């Protein structure tokens, strides 16, 4: 992508000139990511009616219909390219859907989707998403959606790729009705990428809202009678552009002393238009001018920190490390999924099987629960609980694989507005009449993903 570089905003020091090249390097660069199409995104629609190989992860071609491919990653439009070559290192939110025509004995099979990847040069285990049963009628389709969060290196560095696959245990599989793949870059990498020379993410634990730059004329003192020598607080007409750590020029206007008591003070706190400052050496009259320079503190808060936060937001991916026994229960009673371990946790918010929201905002939240299955008919679902609230349930299916237990995976996906300190927990429920284990293998496991998306 011409003109784009990995976000790596400068840290400003007092006296640094605010030049066009510096603003372009940080501000324009970030805007290119979001508004200028510089963020790698892929949308792929497969309507090619590929026939999956029974009980085999069958890669789906991505070149059939490509509504979006922001980096113009090479995609063969006819025939057999399945792999997306990662163009930019970082975190990617991968989502997919595979729906199938059914045939044979569809009610005795499972229908699933997943991702096959090369991550930092190593072939990773396939990662299954949604996995559902089918109706007994061959006239009805079956299909599920899934999601993963990956830290990729580039194809150029380590040949990192991602592919969507279809998997069905039906020995006479019908064609894939539709295969949908989306891939969205959501943040800079954390660490450890081979031969990677770009920037890694920087945590900004308390991001501030974008605020107006100081006005040229500055403002003025409104304290009745002015302020005395030794004052540590001043009230101004307009606090625009002031930040803790910045500087004010008392009795300074247009960069020049207005009175011979002109002096610079540091801002130590801001409450509305009441500004806490370092102690003044002189008294200053009411209506005395106050210069508000564009301080390094302001630029670091408003440029560096905004770029850093938007380039490296809170994200977590936690997956199970072992199986869990889920008791049979009456819906909507559920069981919290435990034994979760975070492989991605940019703001260190995950512990004890729950994610504590570090920064308020709208989060993309995805969960899946992988069940071992049963020869008894059962319904199962996956849900998300915010703190102690009502569980939000996603897919609930009915499995009736009398010819043998088949593992199935229920999914849930929402955008939720969360406040800092709230917790996110993953739940499962099943009503087979007996306890049922979850599945935990290299490719089939339960997981929770949360990604900050907006204030």
């Amino acid at each position: 992508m011409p003109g784009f570089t990995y976000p790596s905003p400068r840290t400003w020091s007092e006296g640094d000139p605010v030049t066009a090249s510096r603003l372009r390097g940080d501000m324009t660069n970030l805007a290119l990511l979001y508004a200028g199409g510089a963020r790698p995104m892929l949308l792929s629609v497969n309507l090619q009616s590929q026939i999956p190989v029974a009980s085999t992860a069958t890669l789906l071609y991505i070149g059939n219909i490509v509504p979006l491919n922001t980096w113009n990653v090479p995609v063969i439009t006819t025939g057999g390219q399945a792999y997306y070559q990662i163009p930019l290192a970082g975190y990617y939110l991968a989502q997919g859907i595979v729906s199938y025509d059914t045939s044979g004995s569809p009610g005795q099979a499972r229908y699933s989707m997943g991702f096959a990847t090369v991550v930092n040069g190593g072939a990773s285990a396939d990662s299954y998403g949604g996995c559902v049963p089918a109706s007994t009628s061959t006239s009805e389709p079956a299909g599920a959606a899934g999601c993963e969060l990956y830290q990729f290196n580039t194809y150029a560095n380590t040949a990192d790729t991602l592919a969507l696959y279809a998997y069905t245990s039906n020995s006479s599989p019908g064609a894939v009705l539709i295969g949908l793949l989306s891939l969205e870059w959501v943040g800079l990498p954390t660490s450890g990428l081979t031969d990677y020379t770009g920037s890694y993410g920087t945590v900004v634990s308390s991001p501030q809202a974008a605020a107006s730059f100081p006005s040229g004329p500055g403002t003025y003192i409104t304290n009745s009678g002015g302020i005395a020598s030794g004052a540590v607080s001043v009230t101004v007409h307009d606090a625009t552009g002031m930040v803790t750590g910045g500087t004010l020029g008392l009795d300074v206007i247009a960069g020049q002393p207005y009175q011979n008591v002109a002096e610079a003070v540091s801002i130590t706190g801001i409450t509305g238009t009441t500004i806490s400052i370092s102690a003044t050496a002189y008294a200053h009259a009411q209506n005395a001018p106050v210069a508000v320079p564009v301080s390094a503190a302001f630029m670091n808060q408003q440029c560096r920190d905004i770029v850093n936060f938007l380039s490296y937001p809170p994200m977590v991916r936690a997956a199970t490390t072992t199986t869990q026994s889920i008791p049979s229960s009456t819906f909507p009673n559920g069981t919290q999924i435990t034994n979760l371990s975070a492989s991605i946790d940019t703001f260190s918010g995950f512990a004890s099987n729950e994610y504590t929201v570090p920064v308020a905002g709208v989060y993309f939240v995805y969960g899946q629960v992988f069940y071992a299955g049963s020869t008894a008919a059962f319904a199962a679902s996956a849900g998300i609980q915010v703190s102690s609230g009502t569980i939000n349930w996603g897919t609930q299916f009915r499995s009736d694989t009398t010819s043998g237990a088949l593992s199935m995976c229920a999914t849930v996906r929402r955008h939720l507005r969360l406040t800092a300190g709230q917790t996110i927990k993953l739940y499962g429920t099943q009503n087979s009449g007996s306890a049922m284990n979850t599945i935990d293998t290299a490719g089939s496991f339960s997981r929770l993903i949360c990604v900050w998306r907006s204030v």
Partner: protein
Amino acid sequence: MTTPAPSVPDFIAGFGPQQSDLQSLWVSPAAFFQQKVVFRATQATTATTLPSAGTTTAIGYDNIIEDPYSGWDAGESNWSPPAGYSGWYLVTVTVWVTAPGATQVVLVPHIAGSAAGNAVNGYPLACVVLPNGASGAESFWYCYLEGGSDAIAGAAAVLNSSSNVTTDLTAGQNSSIEILWVSG
């Protein structure tokens, strides 16, 4: 709170920006990237009937949780971004129904609408066979929406059902939709 439509600032060498310039060059775009267009709604009061004929039917979300840009059209059960806010939107949709009256009924969530960039209009975004009890299906897709003209709706169909099926309104097991701007 709403924020101005995003843009890519152009800092020209030698140009000395005034405060008003920086407001449009940086502050407004940054404010938008921090607080993007978001719409969230659930169905909590009046259920939607999904015909046994399998017709894809828009869900009548009636609990609008968040719609700062007032894009929701209750009459059409769809949402439009405001003019000037065209872009790619990530849509997440969950559909829940009450007991369908039999097993083997298949629930299919859809994202429907006028958006030309919605290449999946009409295609099944999941196909879930239901128990004869409250149950649901979830899915997603990204749609390009022209601000002020394109509209998007969460919808669903039931297949292999001999009777109409009604959406569920119970908290935690009711239908929902969220729409988030992700890219220009």
